[in-house]
Protein backbone atom coordinates (compact mmCIF):
# COMPACT_ATOMS: atom_id res chain seq x y z
CA UNK A 1 0.00 0.00 0.00
CA UNK A 2 1.43 3.34 -1.01
CA UNK A 3 0.38 5.55 1.84
CA UNK A 4 1.51 8.76 0.16
CA UNK A 5 -1.32 8.32 -2.34
CA UNK A 6 -3.87 8.81 0.44
CA UNK A 7 -4.76 12.41 0.96
CA UNK A 8 -7.71 14.23 2.47
CA UNK A 9 -10.00 14.06 5.49
CA UNK A 10 -13.54 12.83 4.90
CA UNK A 11 -16.71 12.86 6.94
CA UNK A 12 -19.62 10.51 6.21
CA UNK A 13 -22.65 12.80 6.12
CA UNK A 14 -25.56 10.98 7.70
CA UNK A 15 -28.98 12.28 6.89
CA UNK A 16 -32.54 11.31 7.66
CA UNK A 17 -35.55 12.47 5.70
CA UNK A 18 -33.78 15.49 4.27
CA UNK A 19 -32.10 16.58 7.48
CA UNK A 20 -28.36 16.24 8.11
CA UNK A 21 -27.58 14.52 11.41
CA UNK A 22 -26.07 17.00 13.85
CA UNK A 23 -23.18 14.64 14.57
CA UNK A 24 -22.09 14.91 10.92
CA UNK A 25 -21.95 18.70 11.18
CA UNK A 26 -19.95 18.36 14.39
CA UNK A 27 -17.53 16.01 12.63
CA UNK A 28 -17.04 18.52 9.84
CA UNK A 29 -15.88 20.88 12.57
CA UNK A 30 -13.45 18.30 13.93
CA UNK A 31 -12.44 17.25 10.42
CA UNK A 32 -11.67 20.83 9.47
CA UNK A 33 -9.08 21.04 12.26
CA UNK A 34 -7.45 17.79 11.17
CA UNK A 35 -7.47 18.79 7.50
CA UNK A 36 -5.93 22.17 8.24
CA UNK A 37 -3.23 20.59 10.36
CA UNK A 38 -2.42 18.25 7.50
CA UNK A 39 -2.82 20.90 4.84
CA UNK A 40 -5.30 18.77 2.91
CA UNK A 41 -8.91 19.19 1.77
CA UNK A 42 -11.94 18.29 3.87
CA UNK A 43 -14.69 16.40 2.09
CA UNK A 44 -18.15 15.19 3.00
CA UNK A 45 -19.56 11.99 1.54
CA UNK A 46 -23.30 12.53 1.21
CA UNK A 47 -25.44 9.48 0.44
CA UNK A 48 -29.20 9.39 0.08
CA UNK A 49 -32.18 9.90 -2.19
CA UNK A 50 -33.00 13.46 -3.22
CA UNK A 51 -30.22 14.86 -1.02
CA UNK A 52 -28.48 17.08 -3.54
CA UNK A 53 -29.83 20.27 -1.90
CA UNK A 54 -28.00 19.28 1.27
CA UNK A 55 -24.61 19.43 -0.42
CA UNK A 56 -24.35 23.19 -0.08
CA UNK A 57 -25.02 22.91 3.65
CA UNK A 58 -22.14 20.45 3.94
CA UNK A 59 -19.90 23.03 2.32
CA UNK A 60 -21.16 25.83 4.54
CA UNK A 61 -20.22 23.75 7.57
CA UNK A 62 -16.63 23.40 6.41
CA UNK A 63 -16.24 20.96 3.53
CA UNK A 64 -14.16 21.85 0.48
CA UNK A 65 -15.62 18.97 -1.52
CA UNK A 66 -18.83 16.96 -1.38
CA UNK A 67 -18.92 13.49 -2.96
CA UNK A 68 -22.59 13.04 -3.72
CA UNK A 69 -24.36 9.69 -4.12
CA UNK A 70 -27.97 10.52 -4.85
CA UNK A 71 -30.21 7.63 -5.92
CA UNK A 72 -33.47 6.00 -4.93
CA UNK A 73 -31.49 2.91 -3.95
CA UNK A 74 -30.14 4.93 -1.02
CA UNK A 75 -33.56 6.04 0.18
CA UNK A 76 -33.30 4.21 3.51
CA UNK A 77 -30.06 3.17 5.16
CA UNK A 78 -28.95 -0.35 4.34
CA UNK A 79 -25.48 -1.72 4.95
CA UNK A 80 -25.18 -3.25 1.51
CA UNK A 81 -25.94 -0.07 -0.43
CA UNK A 82 -24.26 2.60 1.67
CA UNK A 83 -21.07 0.64 2.16
CA UNK A 84 -20.77 0.19 -1.59
CA UNK A 85 -20.82 3.97 -2.00
CA UNK A 86 -18.20 4.60 0.70
CA UNK A 87 -15.92 1.78 -0.45
CA UNK A 88 -15.97 2.77 -4.10
CA UNK A 89 -15.50 6.43 -3.28
CA UNK A 90 -12.60 5.58 -1.01
CA UNK A 91 -10.93 3.33 -3.56
CA UNK A 92 -11.28 5.99 -6.24
CA UNK A 93 -10.33 9.11 -4.30
CA UNK A 94 -8.14 7.65 -1.56
CA UNK A 95 -8.72 9.62 1.67
CA UNK A 96 -6.26 9.30 4.53
CA UNK A 97 -8.97 9.66 7.19
CA UNK A 98 -12.72 8.97 7.27
CA UNK A 99 -14.88 10.00 10.24
CA UNK A 100 -18.40 8.70 10.96
CA UNK A 101 -20.94 9.56 13.63
CA UNK A 102 -21.15 6.74 16.18
CA UNK A 103 -24.84 6.31 15.54
CA UNK A 104 -26.69 3.09 14.84
CA UNK A 105 -26.13 3.76 11.13
CA UNK A 106 -22.61 5.13 11.37
CA UNK A 107 -21.22 2.24 13.41
CA UNK A 108 -22.93 -0.35 11.24
CA UNK A 109 -21.53 1.29 8.11
CA UNK A 110 -18.01 1.95 9.41
CA UNK A 111 -17.60 -1.62 10.65
CA UNK A 112 -18.53 -3.08 7.27
CA UNK A 113 -16.33 -0.64 5.34
CA UNK A 114 -13.33 -1.23 7.62
CA UNK A 115 -13.56 -4.98 7.06
CA UNK A 116 -13.82 -4.73 3.27
CA UNK A 117 -10.99 -2.22 3.07
CA UNK A 118 -9.00 -4.26 5.63
CA UNK A 119 -8.17 -1.14 7.59
CA UNK A 120 -8.32 0.17 11.13
CA UNK A 121 -11.39 1.61 12.83
CA UNK A 122 -11.54 3.18 16.30
CA UNK A 123 -14.97 3.26 17.87
CA UNK A 124 -16.53 6.06 19.92
CA UNK A 125 -13.50 8.34 19.85
CA UNK A 126 -13.75 11.25 22.21
CA UNK A 127 -10.54 13.02 21.23
CA UNK A 128 -9.16 13.30 17.69
CA UNK A 129 -5.80 14.71 16.72
CA UNK A 130 -3.31 14.26 13.96
CA UNK A 131 0.42 13.97 14.55
CA UNK A 132 2.31 16.75 12.76
CA UNK A 133 5.43 14.66 12.17
CA UNK A 134 4.05 11.36 10.91
CA UNK A 135 0.53 12.37 9.87
CA UNK A 136 -1.08 9.63 11.94
CA UNK A 137 -4.61 10.02 13.24
CA UNK A 138 -4.57 9.79 17.03
CA UNK A 139 -8.02 8.62 18.07
CA UNK A 140 -8.54 8.41 21.82
CA UNK A 141 -11.45 6.77 23.56
CA UNK A 142 -12.58 5.41 26.90
CA UNK A 143 -12.15 1.63 27.28
CA UNK A 144 -13.05 -1.03 29.82
CA UNK A 145 -16.44 0.52 30.37
CA UNK A 146 -14.88 3.95 30.83
CA UNK A 147 -12.27 3.05 33.41
CA UNK A 148 -9.31 3.99 31.21
CA UNK A 149 -8.52 6.13 28.17
CA UNK A 150 -6.67 4.64 25.21
CA UNK A 151 -5.11 6.23 22.12
CA UNK A 152 -5.35 4.11 19.00
CA UNK A 153 -3.18 4.36 15.91
CA UNK A 154 -3.53 2.82 12.48
CA UNK A 155 0.01 2.97 11.21
CA UNK A 156 0.20 0.94 8.00
CA UNK A 157 -3.29 0.91 6.59
CA UNK A 158 -5.44 3.52 4.86
CA UNK A 159 -7.88 5.08 5.25
CA UNK A 160 -7.65 5.52 9.02
CA UNK A 161 -11.20 5.52 10.34
CA UNK A 162 -12.98 6.51 13.50
CA UNK A 163 -16.52 6.86 14.77
CA UNK A 164 -17.43 9.69 17.13
CA UNK A 165 -20.56 10.13 19.24
CA UNK A 166 -22.77 13.16 18.94
CA UNK A 167 -22.17 16.14 21.20
CA UNK A 168 -18.48 15.34 21.55
CA UNK A 169 -17.11 17.55 18.75
CA UNK A 170 -18.24 21.03 17.81
CA UNK A 171 -19.65 22.16 14.48
CA UNK A 172 -18.23 25.29 12.87
CA UNK A 173 -20.42 28.37 12.51
CA UNK A 174 -21.83 27.91 8.99
CA UNK A 175 -20.32 30.18 6.35
CA UNK A 176 -22.82 30.94 3.58
CA UNK A 177 -20.04 32.43 1.49
CA UNK A 178 -17.86 29.33 1.47
CA UNK A 179 -17.34 27.74 -1.92
CA UNK A 180 -16.78 24.09 -2.57
CA UNK A 181 -16.88 21.46 -5.25
CA UNK A 182 -19.72 18.95 -5.62
CA UNK A 183 -18.66 15.73 -7.31
CA UNK A 184 -21.56 13.51 -8.33
CA UNK A 185 -20.87 9.80 -8.21
CA UNK A 186 -22.91 6.63 -8.51
CA UNK A 187 -22.77 2.92 -7.82
CA UNK A 188 -23.92 0.18 -10.18
CA UNK A 189 -26.45 -1.49 -7.89
CA UNK A 190 -29.86 -2.82 -8.83
CA UNK A 191 -32.63 -3.35 -6.29
CA UNK A 192 -33.04 -6.97 -7.52
CA UNK A 193 -29.44 -7.76 -6.58
CA UNK A 194 -29.89 -6.68 -2.99
CA UNK A 195 -30.53 -9.02 -0.09
CA UNK A 196 -32.12 -6.63 2.40
CA UNK A 197 -35.23 -4.47 2.17
CA UNK A 198 -36.47 -1.82 4.53
CA UNK A 199 -40.16 -2.63 4.95
CA UNK A 200 -40.93 0.25 7.26
CA UNK A 201 -39.31 2.92 9.38
CA UNK A 202 -41.05 3.64 12.64
CA UNK A 203 -40.04 6.90 14.28
CA UNK A 204 -40.97 7.56 17.87
CA UNK A 205 -43.99 9.84 17.82
CA UNK A 206 -42.95 12.33 20.45
CA UNK A 207 -39.84 14.32 19.50
CA UNK A 208 -39.32 14.73 23.22
CA UNK A 209 -37.49 11.43 23.38
CA UNK A 210 -34.25 12.85 21.91
CA UNK A 211 -32.30 12.90 25.14
CA UNK A 212 -29.06 13.69 23.34
CA UNK A 213 -30.49 17.03 22.22
CA UNK A 214 -31.94 18.16 25.57
CA UNK A 215 -30.92 21.42 27.23
CA UNK A 216 -31.92 20.34 30.71
CA UNK A 217 -31.96 16.81 32.03
CA UNK A 218 -33.20 15.56 35.36
CA UNK A 219 -31.70 12.11 35.88
CA UNK A 220 -32.49 9.66 38.62
CA UNK A 221 -30.74 6.63 40.00
CA UNK A 222 -31.25 3.70 42.32
CA UNK A 223 -31.25 6.05 45.30
CA UNK A 224 -34.89 6.83 44.57
CA UNK A 225 -35.73 3.41 45.89
CA UNK A 226 -38.50 2.23 43.61
CA UNK A 227 -40.43 2.98 40.45
CA UNK A 228 -42.85 4.92 42.61
CA UNK A 229 -39.97 6.89 44.08
CA UNK A 230 -38.71 7.58 40.56
CA UNK A 231 -41.93 9.47 39.87
CA UNK A 232 -40.27 12.36 41.68
CA UNK A 233 -37.92 12.65 38.72
CA UNK A 234 -40.80 12.81 36.26
CA UNK A 235 -42.52 15.42 38.40
CA UNK A 236 -39.45 17.62 38.70
CA UNK A 237 -38.60 17.30 35.02
CA UNK A 238 -42.17 18.08 34.02
CA UNK A 239 -42.19 21.10 36.28
CA UNK A 240 -39.12 22.75 34.77
CA UNK A 241 -39.53 21.52 31.19
CA UNK A 242 -36.60 19.13 31.41
CA UNK A 243 -36.14 15.67 29.96
CA UNK A 244 -35.90 12.60 32.12
CA UNK A 245 -32.63 10.70 32.30
CA UNK A 246 -31.76 7.54 34.18
CA UNK A 247 -28.85 5.46 35.32
CA UNK A 248 -28.31 1.97 33.92
CA UNK A 249 -29.44 0.34 37.18
CA UNK A 250 -32.79 2.09 37.00
CA UNK A 251 -33.35 1.06 33.39
CA UNK A 252 -32.36 -2.53 34.14
CA UNK A 253 -34.75 -2.52 37.09
CA UNK A 254 -37.49 -1.59 34.66
CA UNK A 255 -38.48 1.68 36.36
CA UNK A 256 -38.11 3.59 33.13
CA UNK A 257 -37.65 2.91 29.42
CA UNK A 258 -34.13 2.40 28.06
CA UNK A 259 -34.46 5.53 25.90
CA UNK A 260 -33.73 7.48 29.07
CA UNK A 261 -30.46 5.74 29.90
CA UNK A 262 -27.45 8.03 30.14
CA UNK A 263 -23.96 6.56 30.05
CA UNK A 264 -21.36 4.46 28.29
CA UNK A 265 -23.93 1.95 27.05
CA UNK A 266 -26.74 4.49 26.92
CA UNK A 267 -26.86 7.96 25.46
CA UNK A 268 -24.14 10.61 25.67
CA UNK A 269 -25.74 13.89 26.63
CA UNK A 270 -24.58 17.48 26.63
CA UNK A 271 -27.25 19.56 28.33
CA UNK A 272 -26.71 23.00 29.77
CA UNK A 273 -27.92 21.68 33.13
CA UNK A 274 -27.81 18.11 34.42
CA UNK A 275 -29.39 17.06 37.69
CA UNK A 276 -28.06 13.76 39.05
CA UNK A 277 -30.50 12.69 41.75
CA UNK A 278 -29.97 9.52 43.74
CA UNK A 279 -27.21 8.53 41.31
CA UNK A 280 -24.03 7.15 42.85
CA UNK A 281 -21.81 8.18 39.96
CA UNK A 282 -20.35 4.99 38.49
CA UNK A 283 -17.84 5.78 35.76
CA UNK A 284 -20.14 4.30 33.09
CA UNK A 285 -22.67 6.97 33.93
CA UNK A 286 -20.17 9.81 34.25
CA UNK A 287 -18.73 9.29 30.78
CA UNK A 288 -22.20 9.89 29.38
CA UNK A 289 -22.77 13.31 30.99
CA UNK A 290 -19.47 14.72 32.24
CA UNK A 291 -19.35 17.54 29.68
CA UNK A 292 -22.69 18.99 30.74
CA UNK A 293 -22.62 22.73 31.35
CA UNK A 294 -23.75 22.66 34.96
CA UNK A 295 -23.99 19.44 36.97
CA UNK A 296 -26.00 19.38 40.18
CA UNK A 297 -25.83 16.26 42.32
CA UNK A 298 -28.18 15.33 45.12
CA UNK A 299 -27.42 12.18 47.08
CA UNK A 300 -27.83 10.89 50.62
CA UNK A 301 -24.31 9.42 50.64
CA UNK A 302 -21.58 12.02 51.20
CA UNK A 303 -19.04 9.58 49.74
CA UNK A 304 -20.92 9.02 46.48
CA UNK A 305 -18.47 9.37 43.58
CA UNK A 306 -20.96 11.64 41.79
CA UNK A 307 -19.81 14.48 44.04
CA UNK A 308 -16.40 14.29 42.37
CA UNK A 309 -17.97 14.92 38.99
CA UNK A 310 -20.45 17.68 39.71
CA UNK A 311 -20.27 21.42 39.94
CA UNK A 312 -22.54 21.71 42.95
CA UNK A 313 -23.58 18.99 45.36
CA UNK A 314 -26.14 18.60 48.08
CA UNK A 315 -25.86 15.78 50.57
CA UNK A 316 -29.44 15.12 51.45
CA UNK A 317 -32.61 13.17 50.91
CA UNK A 318 -33.95 13.75 47.40
CA UNK A 319 -37.50 13.30 48.69
CA UNK A 320 -36.96 16.30 50.94
CA UNK A 321 -34.76 18.50 48.75
CA UNK A 322 -36.45 18.12 45.38
CA UNK A 323 -40.00 19.05 46.45
CA UNK A 324 -38.55 22.07 48.25
CA UNK A 325 -36.66 23.00 45.11
CA UNK A 326 -39.78 22.60 42.97
CA UNK A 327 -41.72 24.88 45.25
CA UNK A 328 -38.97 27.48 45.43
CA UNK A 329 -38.74 27.40 41.63
CA UNK A 330 -42.43 27.96 41.19
CA UNK A 331 -42.37 30.91 43.56
CA UNK A 332 -39.32 32.52 42.03
CA UNK A 333 -40.39 32.23 38.41
CA UNK A 334 -44.05 33.11 38.88
CA UNK A 335 -43.30 35.63 41.56
CA UNK A 336 -41.45 37.73 38.96
CA UNK A 337 -44.63 38.51 37.09
CA UNK A 338 -45.96 40.26 40.17
CA UNK A 339 -42.97 42.56 40.41
CA UNK A 340 -43.61 43.47 36.76
Amino acid at each position, binding site marked *: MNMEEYCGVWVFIEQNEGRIASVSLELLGAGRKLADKRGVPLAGVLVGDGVKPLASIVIQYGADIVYLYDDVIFKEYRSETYMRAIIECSEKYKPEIILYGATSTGKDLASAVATDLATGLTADSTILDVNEENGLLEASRPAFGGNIM*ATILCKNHRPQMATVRSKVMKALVPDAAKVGEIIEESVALKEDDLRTKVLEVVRVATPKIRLDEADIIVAGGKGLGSQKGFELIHAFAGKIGAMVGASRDVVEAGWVDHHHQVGQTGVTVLPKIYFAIGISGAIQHIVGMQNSGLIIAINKDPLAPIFQ*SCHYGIVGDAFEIVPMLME*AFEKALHGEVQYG
Partner: protein
Amino acid sequence: MLHIVACIKQVPDTKIIKMNPKTNTMDRSSAPAILNPYDAHAVEEAVRLKNRYGGTVSVLTMGPPPAVKAIKKCVEIGADEGYLITDRFFAGADTLATSYSLTMALQKIARIQPIDLVICGKMTIDGDTGQVGPGIARRLDIPPLTSVNKVVEINQEEGFIVIHRKLEDGHQVLHSSLPCLLSVEKEINEIPYSTLPNMLRAARYKPIIWSANDLEDIDRSLLGLKGSPTIVSKIWAPEKPKGGEMLQGSSSEQVERLLSILLEKKELFDVKEAKA
Protein backbone atom coordinates in the same frame (compact mmCIF):
# COMPACT_ATOMS: atom_id res chain seq x y z
CA MET B 1 -34.54 -26.97 11.49
CA LEU B 2 -32.24 -24.00 12.09
CA HIS B 3 -28.57 -24.11 12.95
CA ILE B 4 -27.84 -20.92 14.82
CA VAL B 5 -24.33 -20.00 15.93
CA ALA B 6 -23.86 -17.39 18.63
CA CYS B 7 -20.49 -15.66 18.86
CA ILE B 8 -19.72 -14.82 22.46
CA LYS B 9 -16.95 -13.42 24.62
CA GLN B 10 -15.81 -13.79 28.19
CA VAL B 11 -15.04 -10.34 29.60
CA PRO B 12 -14.04 -8.84 32.94
CA ASP B 13 -17.03 -7.29 34.69
CA THR B 14 -16.19 -3.68 33.84
CA LYS B 15 -18.97 -2.42 36.07
CA ILE B 16 -16.84 -3.26 39.09
CA ILE B 17 -13.30 -3.55 37.75
CA LYS B 18 -10.73 -1.24 39.29
CA MET B 19 -7.72 0.57 37.90
CA ASN B 20 -4.37 -0.18 39.47
CA PRO B 21 -3.31 3.40 40.27
CA LYS B 22 0.40 2.52 40.37
CA THR B 23 0.62 0.88 36.96
CA ASN B 24 -2.29 2.67 35.24
CA THR B 25 -3.57 -0.63 33.90
CA MET B 26 -6.69 -2.63 34.63
CA ASP B 27 -6.43 -4.87 37.66
CA ARG B 28 -8.16 -7.91 36.20
CA SER B 29 -8.14 -9.66 39.58
CA SER B 30 -10.48 -6.96 40.89
CA ALA B 31 -13.39 -8.19 38.80
CA PRO B 32 -14.72 -11.63 37.96
CA ALA B 33 -14.80 -12.87 34.36
CA ILE B 34 -18.35 -13.03 33.06
CA LEU B 35 -20.20 -13.84 29.87
CA ASN B 36 -20.51 -10.53 28.02
CA PRO B 37 -24.05 -9.39 28.94
CA TYR B 38 -25.00 -8.55 25.34
CA ASP B 39 -23.89 -12.03 24.24
CA ALA B 40 -26.01 -13.63 26.96
CA HIS B 41 -29.05 -11.98 25.36
CA ALA B 42 -27.86 -13.17 21.95
CA VAL B 43 -27.70 -16.77 23.18
CA GLU B 44 -31.10 -16.43 24.85
CA GLU B 45 -32.56 -15.17 21.57
CA ALA B 46 -30.96 -18.07 19.70
CA VAL B 47 -32.49 -20.50 22.18
CA ARG B 48 -35.91 -18.88 21.79
CA LEU B 49 -35.66 -19.16 18.01
CA LYS B 50 -34.63 -22.78 18.37
CA ASN B 51 -37.68 -23.42 20.53
CA ARG B 52 -39.93 -21.64 18.06
CA TYR B 53 -38.61 -23.09 14.80
CA GLY B 54 -36.67 -26.19 15.82
CA GLY B 55 -32.95 -26.75 15.40
CA THR B 56 -29.70 -26.40 17.33
CA VAL B 57 -27.72 -23.61 18.91
CA SER B 58 -23.93 -23.64 18.88
CA VAL B 59 -21.76 -21.01 20.50
CA LEU B 60 -18.28 -19.95 19.45
CA THR B 61 -15.70 -17.95 21.32
CA MET B 62 -12.09 -16.93 20.83
CA GLY B 63 -10.16 -16.59 24.06
CA PRO B 64 -7.75 -18.05 26.60
CA PRO B 65 -8.67 -21.42 28.22
CA PRO B 66 -10.78 -19.90 31.05
CA ALA B 67 -13.28 -18.85 28.35
CA VAL B 68 -14.65 -22.39 28.68
CA LYS B 69 -16.63 -21.04 31.65
CA ALA B 70 -18.46 -18.61 29.39
CA ILE B 71 -19.37 -21.45 27.05
CA LYS B 72 -20.77 -23.45 29.96
CA LYS B 73 -22.85 -20.41 30.90
CA CYS B 74 -24.31 -20.50 27.40
CA VAL B 75 -25.17 -24.18 27.81
CA GLU B 76 -26.98 -23.18 31.00
CA ILE B 77 -29.02 -20.72 28.94
CA GLY B 78 -29.82 -23.55 26.52
CA ALA B 79 -27.08 -23.82 23.90
CA ASP B 80 -26.39 -27.31 22.55
CA GLU B 81 -22.72 -27.13 21.55
CA GLY B 82 -19.78 -24.88 22.27
CA TYR B 83 -16.57 -24.22 20.38
CA LEU B 84 -13.50 -22.50 21.79
CA ILE B 85 -10.69 -21.36 19.55
CA THR B 86 -7.64 -20.71 21.64
CA ASP B 87 -4.05 -20.11 20.66
CA ARG B 88 -1.33 -17.64 21.52
CA PHE B 89 -1.35 -16.64 17.84
CA PHE B 90 -4.79 -15.08 18.37
CA ALA B 91 -3.57 -12.81 21.15
CA GLY B 92 -3.44 -9.06 20.72
CA ALA B 93 -6.05 -9.10 17.98
CA ASP B 94 -7.97 -5.94 17.16
CA THR B 95 -11.47 -6.17 15.72
CA LEU B 96 -10.28 -6.91 12.17
CA ALA B 97 -8.05 -9.81 13.25
CA THR B 98 -10.77 -11.04 15.63
CA SER B 99 -13.43 -11.13 12.93
CA TYR B 100 -10.98 -13.02 10.70
CA SER B 101 -10.25 -15.69 13.30
CA LEU B 102 -13.91 -16.15 14.20
CA THR B 103 -14.85 -16.36 10.53
CA MET B 104 -12.33 -19.17 9.91
CA ALA B 105 -13.85 -21.05 12.85
CA LEU B 106 -17.40 -20.43 11.60
CA GLN B 107 -16.44 -21.82 8.21
CA LYS B 108 -15.13 -24.94 9.89
CA ILE B 109 -18.33 -25.27 11.94
CA ALA B 110 -20.36 -24.78 8.75
CA ARG B 111 -18.57 -27.73 7.16
CA ILE B 112 -19.83 -29.87 10.05
CA GLN B 113 -23.34 -28.42 9.94
CA PRO B 114 -24.40 -25.57 7.61
CA ILE B 115 -25.25 -22.34 9.46
CA ASP B 116 -28.55 -20.53 8.94
CA LEU B 117 -28.02 -17.63 11.28
CA VAL B 118 -25.11 -16.05 13.16
CA ILE B 119 -26.02 -14.02 16.20
CA CYS B 120 -23.92 -11.99 18.63
CA GLY B 121 -24.27 -9.22 21.17
CA LYS B 122 -24.17 -5.65 19.92
CA MET B 123 -20.86 -4.99 21.62
CA THR B 124 -18.62 -6.17 24.46
CA ILE B 125 -18.33 -4.27 27.70
CA ASP B 126 -14.54 -4.31 27.56
CA GLY B 127 -13.78 -3.59 23.90
CA ASP B 128 -16.92 -1.46 23.56
CA THR B 129 -16.64 -1.30 19.75
CA GLY B 130 -19.50 -3.32 18.21
CA GLN B 131 -17.33 -3.91 15.15
CA VAL B 132 -16.67 -7.65 15.17
CA GLY B 133 -20.23 -8.73 14.27
CA PRO B 134 -20.46 -6.73 11.03
CA GLY B 135 -16.86 -7.73 10.28
CA ILE B 136 -17.77 -11.42 10.43
CA ALA B 137 -20.82 -10.80 8.26
CA ARG B 138 -18.75 -9.07 5.60
CA ARG B 139 -16.19 -11.85 5.56
CA LEU B 140 -18.90 -14.50 5.21
CA ASP B 141 -20.62 -12.26 2.66
CA ILE B 142 -23.91 -12.36 4.53
CA PRO B 143 -25.99 -9.30 5.45
CA PRO B 144 -25.07 -7.71 8.79
CA LEU B 145 -28.12 -6.53 10.75
CA THR B 146 -26.97 -4.56 13.78
CA SER B 147 -28.73 -3.18 16.87
CA VAL B 148 -31.53 -5.73 16.53
CA ASN B 149 -34.13 -5.49 19.26
CA LYS B 150 -36.76 -7.82 17.86
CA VAL B 151 -36.92 -10.86 15.61
CA VAL B 152 -40.33 -10.75 13.99
CA GLU B 153 -40.20 -13.95 11.97
CA ILE B 154 -37.97 -16.45 10.23
CA ASN B 155 -39.21 -18.20 7.11
CA GLN B 156 -36.92 -21.12 6.43
CA GLU B 157 -38.56 -22.32 3.20
CA GLU B 158 -38.34 -18.97 1.51
CA GLY B 159 -35.08 -18.20 3.27
CA PHE B 160 -35.76 -14.84 4.90
CA ILE B 161 -35.89 -13.14 8.27
CA VAL B 162 -37.70 -9.99 9.42
CA ILE B 163 -36.29 -7.97 12.30
CA HIS B 164 -36.46 -4.59 13.99
CA ARG B 165 -33.24 -2.58 13.89
CA LYS B 166 -32.98 0.10 16.55
CA LEU B 167 -32.42 3.71 15.50
CA GLU B 168 -31.80 6.75 17.69
CA ASP B 169 -35.43 7.79 17.24
CA GLY B 170 -37.29 4.56 16.51
CA HIS B 171 -36.60 1.45 14.44
CA GLN B 172 -36.38 0.04 10.92
CA VAL B 173 -38.32 -3.07 9.98
CA LEU B 174 -35.81 -4.96 7.85
CA HIS B 175 -36.33 -7.98 5.65
CA SER B 176 -33.19 -9.95 4.85
CA SER B 177 -32.26 -13.13 3.06
CA LEU B 178 -30.80 -15.96 5.12
CA PRO B 179 -28.16 -16.67 6.17
CA CYS B 180 -27.39 -13.37 7.82
CA LEU B 181 -25.82 -12.03 11.02
CA LEU B 182 -27.71 -10.32 13.82
CA SER B 183 -26.08 -8.24 16.53
CA VAL B 184 -28.55 -7.70 19.33
CA GLU B 185 -29.50 -5.14 21.94
CA LYS B 186 -30.03 -6.23 25.55
CA GLU B 187 -33.65 -5.15 25.37
CA ILE B 188 -34.40 -7.90 22.81
CA ASN B 189 -35.30 -10.30 25.58
CA GLU B 190 -35.11 -11.07 29.26
CA ILE B 191 -33.03 -14.00 30.37
CA PRO B 192 -34.94 -16.30 32.70
CA TYR B 193 -33.30 -18.32 35.45
CA SER B 194 -31.57 -21.41 34.11
CA THR B 195 -33.43 -24.69 34.35
CA LEU B 196 -31.95 -27.42 36.50
CA PRO B 197 -31.45 -29.83 33.56
CA ASN B 198 -29.53 -27.10 31.68
CA MET B 199 -27.41 -26.35 34.71
CA LEU B 200 -26.50 -29.99 35.14
CA ARG B 201 -25.76 -30.30 31.44
CA ALA B 202 -23.56 -27.21 31.60
CA ALA B 203 -21.64 -28.52 34.60
CA ARG B 204 -20.75 -31.69 32.70
CA TYR B 205 -20.29 -30.09 29.31
CA LYS B 206 -16.90 -30.14 27.58
CA PRO B 207 -16.62 -27.76 24.64
CA ILE B 208 -14.83 -28.55 21.39
CA ILE B 209 -11.47 -26.81 21.45
CA TRP B 210 -9.50 -25.81 18.37
CA SER B 211 -6.13 -24.14 17.97
CA ALA B 212 -4.94 -22.16 14.96
CA ASN B 213 -3.61 -25.43 13.51
CA ASP B 214 -7.12 -26.88 13.41
CA LEU B 215 -8.40 -24.06 11.20
CA GLU B 216 -7.61 -25.18 7.70
CA ASP B 217 -6.16 -22.64 5.27
CA ILE B 218 -5.76 -20.02 7.95
CA ASP B 219 -3.45 -17.15 7.01
CA ARG B 220 -1.34 -16.58 10.10
CA SER B 221 -0.29 -13.13 8.98
CA LEU B 222 -3.89 -12.04 9.58
CA LEU B 223 -3.99 -13.28 13.17
CA GLY B 224 -3.39 -11.57 16.48
CA LEU B 225 -1.27 -8.51 16.87
CA LYS B 226 0.37 -9.04 13.45
CA GLY B 227 -3.01 -9.05 11.74
CA SER B 228 -4.24 -5.90 13.48
CA PRO B 229 -4.15 -2.58 11.63
CA THR B 230 -4.81 -0.73 14.86
CA ILE B 231 -2.64 -0.68 17.95
CA VAL B 232 -3.01 0.95 21.31
CA SER B 233 -0.22 3.46 21.57
CA LYS B 234 -1.07 4.91 24.93
CA ILE B 235 -3.25 4.14 27.94
CA TRP B 236 -3.94 6.56 30.71
CA ALA B 237 -6.33 7.11 33.58
CA PRO B 238 -9.02 9.67 32.78
CA GLU B 239 -8.46 12.97 34.52
CA LYS B 240 -9.92 12.87 37.99
CA PRO B 241 -12.36 15.73 38.30
CA LYS B 242 -11.68 18.13 41.15
CA GLY B 243 -15.08 17.66 42.74
CA GLY B 244 -17.93 20.05 43.12
CA GLU B 245 -18.79 22.68 45.64
CA MET B 246 -20.86 21.11 48.39
CA LEU B 247 -23.70 23.40 49.39
CA GLN B 248 -23.80 24.02 53.12
CA GLY B 249 -26.40 24.71 55.75
CA SER B 250 -29.89 23.42 56.41
CA SER B 251 -31.98 21.90 53.64
CA SER B 252 -33.79 25.15 53.03
CA GLU B 253 -30.52 27.08 52.92
CA GLN B 254 -29.11 24.58 50.43
CA VAL B 255 -32.21 24.83 48.26
CA GLU B 256 -32.10 28.62 48.38
CA ARG B 257 -28.46 28.66 47.31
CA LEU B 258 -29.13 26.14 44.55
CA LEU B 259 -32.06 28.15 43.31
CA SER B 260 -29.99 31.30 42.98
CA ILE B 261 -27.38 29.34 40.99
CA LEU B 262 -30.07 27.96 38.70
CA LEU B 263 -31.84 31.29 38.25
CA GLU B 264 -28.71 32.59 36.55
CA LYS B 265 -29.86 30.34 33.70
CA LYS B 266 -33.55 31.06 34.10
CA GLU B 267 -34.17 31.58 30.38
CA LEU B 268 -33.77 27.82 29.99
CA PHE B 269 -36.60 26.96 32.28
CA ASP B 270 -40.15 26.50 31.25
CA VAL B 271 -42.00 26.24 34.51
CA LYS B 272 -45.35 24.49 34.22
CA GLU B 273 -48.31 25.00 36.51
CA ALA B 274 -48.15 22.41 39.27
CA LYS B 275 -50.89 19.88 38.75
CA ALA B 276 -49.45 16.57 39.94
